[in-house]
């Protein structure tokens, strides 16, 4: 090598070493748990590309933030070498299966994900057969945790959130009739619509109109015109944010002023960003509030925003909560595949950005849903 090149190389190498020297001492600032020094691999299966990328990218961002926080000591894993290995399943069922197989055969201690309930139904059985524990952070359909004795969930399902949403809103708004509009080709939105229908009917509300749409639809004028003509007291949205925001805005354009409510899918600040004042007052039954005061939530939101330039949504928050949960388990000394499942089962409580969480006997998260109301700048608690 020529002289100048050699010096440049040496300089670069030295510069690369300095941060390690600086970070070193701060690692020592975390506590030393029973698993100190051990390497704990946690596999994350997320749809970073493909049709579910909008959710998968939030999840990946949350885990990479968690990786940073582990290095800097903000997340304490008791001195163990814990890292989250995020792999992209590209919203492709085949890749989901392959990733599950990879993580169950390469010494991974625990699997987090996948992004969609349908993917969980395809992939969790592989983990179950290999006795590797799986923790879902965004799978909210029925029957996921019953796939196996080591399948857990930190995401509140629609079945857990909707009854509370209906009860609260009926008490305040006192509606007698409702119209439901929901997506019929997506497992989440369809379940959402079905559960709302059941709960409303149980509460003595009569459904005066039901409309369906497809994922990716942008034009809801036809359905909304019908809903308007049916004059319901409340409109229910079984939708994810991308469609919900347009339904809300187009409803306003058509002059619909009825109360609106929805489930987990509406827990995103994108809705107000898109629909503006038309979105104010929409009630959302959710698992997390961006303004919530829970352990590290405000700091998490700030750091996420600073690093990625966008706010975290519920997908990101639930992913980060899983990371917090795992860090807590590793700090207690759980490092291998065989230790994770019993540890999760015996968990008393984990303090996360979602609030304190634990698992019920069915391995679903036991946490209280929050009933929020969209307003400018975020969400308020619904009264």
């Amino acid at each position: 090598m020529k002289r100048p090149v050699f010096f440049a190389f040496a300089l670069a190498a030295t510069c690369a070493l300095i941060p390690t020297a600086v970070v070193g001492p701060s690692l020592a600032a975390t506590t030393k748990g029973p698993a100190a020094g051990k390497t704990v691999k946690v596999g994350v299966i997320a749809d970073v590309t493909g049709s579910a990328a909008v959710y998968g990218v939030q999840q990946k961002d949350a885990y990479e933030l968690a990786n940073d926080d582990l290095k800097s000591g903000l997340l304490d894993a008791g001195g163990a070498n814990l890292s989250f290995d995020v792999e992209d399943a590209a919203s492709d069922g085949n890749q989901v299966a392959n990733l599950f197989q990879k993580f169950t055969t390469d010494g991974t201690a625990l699997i987090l994900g996948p992004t969609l309930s349908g993917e969980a139904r395809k992939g969790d059985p592989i983990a179950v057969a290999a006795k590797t524990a799986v923790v879902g952070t965004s799978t909210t359909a029925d029957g996921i945790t019953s796939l196996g004795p080591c399948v857990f969930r930190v995401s509140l399902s629609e079945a857990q959130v909707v009854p509370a949403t209906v009860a609260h809103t009926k008490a305040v708004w006192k509606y007698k009739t409702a119209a439901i509009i929901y997506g019929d080709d997506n497992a989440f939105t369809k379940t959402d619509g079905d559960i709302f229908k059941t709960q409303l009917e149980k509460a003595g509300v009569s459904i005066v109109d039901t409309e369906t749409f497809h994922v990716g639809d942008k034009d809801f004028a036809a359905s909304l015109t019908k809903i308007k003509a049916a004059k319901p007291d409340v409109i229910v949205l079984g939708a994810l944010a991308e469609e919900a925001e347009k339904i809300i805005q187009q409803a306003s354009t058509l002059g619909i002023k009825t109360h609106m409510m929805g489930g987990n899918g509406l827990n995103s600040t994108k809705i107000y960003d898109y629909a503006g004042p038309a979105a104010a007052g929409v009630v959302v039954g959710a698992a997390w509030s961006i303004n919530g005061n829970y352990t590290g939530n405000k700091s998490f939101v700030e750091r996420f925003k600073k690093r990625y330039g966008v706010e975290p949504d519920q997908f990101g928050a639930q992913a980060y909560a899983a990371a917090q949960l795992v860090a807590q388990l590793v700090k207690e000394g759980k490092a291998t595949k065989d230790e994770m499942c019993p540890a999760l089962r015996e968990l008393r409580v984990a303090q996360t950005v979602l609030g304190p969480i634990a698992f019920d006997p069915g391995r679903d998260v036991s946490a209280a849903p929050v009933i929020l109301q969209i307003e400018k700048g975020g969400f308020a608690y619904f009264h």
Partner: protein
Amino acid sequence: MVGQQLVNGLFLGAVYALFAIGYTLVFGVLDILNLAHAAIFMLAAFATWSLLGAGLPFWLAAPIAIAGAGVLGIVLDRIAFAPLRRRAAPNLIPLISSIGMAIIFGAIARGIYGPDERQFALAFLQTPPLHAGPLTFTIVQLVILGSAIAFMLGLAWVMRATALGRAIRAVAEDRVAAALLGIDLERTIGATFFIASALGGLAGILTALQYNSVQIDMGGQIELKGLAVIVLGGMGSITGAVIGGFVIGMVETLAVAFGLSEWRDAISYGVMFLILIVRPTGLFGKRSLRTA
């Protein structure tokens, strides 16, 4: 309510019509189904968004993006279709080639913009809706309707009254004869792609305005719907694409109005299937059935 539904169908149809014109033009001239058309539709909308973000006013950003879409169409032809023409490949191959380009365009868009939806921060999008009696609609919807009609008329004029239009029609009719008559094939084909892609880009920008939404997946649904439109209207017929667009838009809206919203898309595809069985040339197409 029926009146409002008819109005809804009209505006939905205008969007379909604009998209389908570009689709049908390329098919009419080259017998190619260009599955990258939807990707250009999407890229033009993003280009406009980026230009607006860079500070350009809308009346400058949109035309630049539309022209850019046209150029991209020429590039698409040069890379993915022209080499195959020289080789006289069967029609299936350019189709696959266009799929490859669509994937590449999509990957580029995802790399630059990510999967999140973007909005336009334009004042005129926030204007309150207009009313005509019991009917409600927005300015943007009127603009889209006006553009579809204006461009259809403009294109019809180009096709009938200009030398380029005559050349395009000649190439569509019989490529060999056109070449013998001295028409520059490659230039005419290039011009066809420019026009078709520019129109596709325009459709993308107007659609993005209509729903205030720019997103890398935005071409997905309209790609298949566009197919239904051009089959109904007659593949290769511009008038057919426009009329077909409005018919499909109306059919879909009325399907929802009559409580068949789950079957909405199935109805459009069913119409498509029936037309192909009963009258493959569609409403206005002149092409006879061709072998693969």
